[in-house]
């Protein structure tokens, strides 16, 4: 079995042997999924979940916000 690290979240598993190997996507998490790799099979598995990308879309509230100068005199 060969393991190629793609990035900190993903690994490519190649079953280059003659026996079946079973690996787990998102191992140990509620989303864990079993992947059976027969000889010659390969799969990319997540070893941890990548962070969700934040939406770049601005909210209506922030778009409509106006800059206001505030002068405070004491």
């Amino acid at each position, binding site marked *: 079995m060969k393991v190629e690290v793609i990035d900190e979240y993903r690994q490519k598993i190649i079953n280059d042997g003659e026996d*079946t*190997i*079973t690996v*787990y996507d998102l191992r140990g998490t509620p989303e864990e999924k*079993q992947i059976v790799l027969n000889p010659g099979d390969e799969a990319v598995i997540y070893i941890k979940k990548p962070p969700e990308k934040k939406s770049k879309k601005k909210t209506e509230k922030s778009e409509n916000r106006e800059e206001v100068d505030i002068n405070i005199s004491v």
Partner: protein
Amino acid sequence: MVDAWSEWGLLAITAKGQSDVEYSGRIVTDSLDIDTGDKDFDIINLLNGGRLEKPTPEAETVITFDAYFPDIGTSGSGILQLFHTTSSNWDTSQPLEITNSRNRDQFRIAILWTEDTSLTSATAQVPAGSAALRLVITDARLISAKMSFGDGILKTTVKFKVAPFSRTGTANIKWQSTDGTATLEALSSYS
């Protein structure tokens, strides 16, 4: 309904934290032996002629099989690295080498008999429509890997031993079966 299981089965061994590796393609069919620990009791004779049962705690379960291994690989083609050290010390770059050590790993062993002979892993899901019987043993120790060339072919007799419960009382032995009316779900990872 299945009358009996014969001829075909799957056996996967998993070192703690590692992948499940299928070993059934190395194991001699009629060598597989599951020596389930006894739940015996002693008898105390009472003065009035009665008998009192004194339970003996469930004994260890031992799984033994003969296998033919061509090397010391850790992906099904060998067993000696599993015997001599823990998975964090496995050598996976050719040429392989392992020295004996005081390290001892823990293993999960899954043995599956099913009508669905298209399956290739003892830990896989058995879809509805096929009967199946599965034994799952966790936290077992690989206590013996004796080799013999006596018959002119290099054979290894492998022995796993498991305490029936962990220190905290969690069961280490689980049996599952389905008559085909329900799916037998895949096993979770062993960590």
